[in-house]
């Protein structure tokens, strides 16, 4: 069954098309990697999937239901981590999670469970402005997982993370095999290891759509990526 389907999705800012006529389907439980140079339209696409932005043309479906901003039931199924962590620096890590738990109608005990999952239990009483980038990202992931969503939308989850933080995050995401994941990344190694399918966007259009198993290794995928976007 298709968890997500796009039908002719276009998003324009003024006259500038950020993504143009995107159509693809994604099966439930699949991890889709979105690749592409800066400005290719990855974040725009992810924001539309997260219901934070509305397509100028075309339709997005989640389990056959059209995704419109008033579909609050669909939002309940989405866990979203964007480049901005959506945290309040005046609240502690625990208070940030408790706020979102109350907003989502989730039991407060779930916050402790998630703080432990993202290895931030010992920092629960600290404010995020004292956190490293990796810690903020992990806390943002915990916020996204509070309501146990079955679709994860992740915008460059590995950006700005050191080796250890990347490994920690990868181990976390490895545990989400039953969920549908759409993640943008510039990291071919992590993307190759994590994803089942890759879509390369270039200037808002699909330049490549292939199962990751079609490539021998991350280097082979990167070579193909360079070919399709036309860089040496």
């Amino acid at each position, binding site marked *: 069954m298709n968890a997500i389907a796009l039908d002719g999705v276009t998003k324009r800012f003024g006259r500038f098309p950020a993504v143009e006529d995107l159509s693809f389907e994604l099966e439930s439980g699949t991890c889709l990697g979105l690749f592409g140079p800066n400005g290719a339209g990855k974040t725009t696409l992810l924001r539309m999937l997260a219901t*934070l932005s509305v397509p100028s043309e075309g339709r997005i479906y989640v389990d056959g239901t059209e995704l419109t901003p008033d579909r609050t039931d669909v939002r309940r199924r989405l866990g979203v981590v964007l*480049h901005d962590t959506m945290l309040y620096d005046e609240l502690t890590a625990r208070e940030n999670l408790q706020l979102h738990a109350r907003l989502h109608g989730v039991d407060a005990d779930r916050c402790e469970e998630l703080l432990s999952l993202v290895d931030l239990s010992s920092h629960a009483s600290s404010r995020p402005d004292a956190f490293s980038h990796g810690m903020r990202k992990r806390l943002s992931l915990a916020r996204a997982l509070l309501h146990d969503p079955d679709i994860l939308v992740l915008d460059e989850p590995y950006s700005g993370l050191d080796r250890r933080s990347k490994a920690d995050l990868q181990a976390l995401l490895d545990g989400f095999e039953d969920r549908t994941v759409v993640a943008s990344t510039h990291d071919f190694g992590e993307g190759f290891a994590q994803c089942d399918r890759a879509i390369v966007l270039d200037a808002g259009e699909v330049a490549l759509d292939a199962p990751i198993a079609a490539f021998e290794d991350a280097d082979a995928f990167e070579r193909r990526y360079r070919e399709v976007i036309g860089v040496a």
Partner: protein
Amino acid sequence: MSAGTYLRVAGEIARKDLVLELRSKRVLSTAVVFALLVVVTFAFSFAKSFTDLAAVGHGALWISFVFAGTLSVTQSGELESRDGAVDGLMLVPVDRSAIYVGKVASNTTFVTGVELLTLAFVSVFLGYAPPLAVLPTLVGVVVLASLGFSAVGVVLSMLTAKSQVRELLLPALLIPLTVPVLLAGVELTRALTGGGVLDQWLRLLVAYDGILLLAGLMTFEYVLEE
């Protein structure tokens, strides 16, 4: 989505805004110091030469109202634009007008609080206190005026949140739209303490509040969307 869920989310957002402000005191300290300065300046400038202390007191009250209200709604938008916090609220599975209702509630509470403090300053430094009998009605007028000011201010603050010239843009748009609220507030205060017709101005204030709230509820979601 039930009405209970909607109100719970709106309440949580209002509570969150007030907790953040009480912790950071970004707007509170500035608004209180400004109110104090206005009252003290009025006391030095007018208290000895003016016989109508009530008029001076009301002037101080409504000047600090405009300042506290503008600061409050400006901060309201800025708070949510930091680190994409508003996206986190937009992802909550509830009608997005609940965000608007919550933010209007927090701004109304904040501005009313600052005004009550200003009233205390007025009675201490200008030696003028409104008669106790009219105090509850005066507080009611301040609440209604704060509600109207916040109803349009929250929409404009989110609309201008990403602008480079927000500090200029927001007051330039806000003040003309809130003139009926200010006019009704000032006239009602005058009528309450000096005697006069309340009905017409009260009707105007309530009706204008209703129109601004309705317009805010209808447009807020589109303001948030890209």
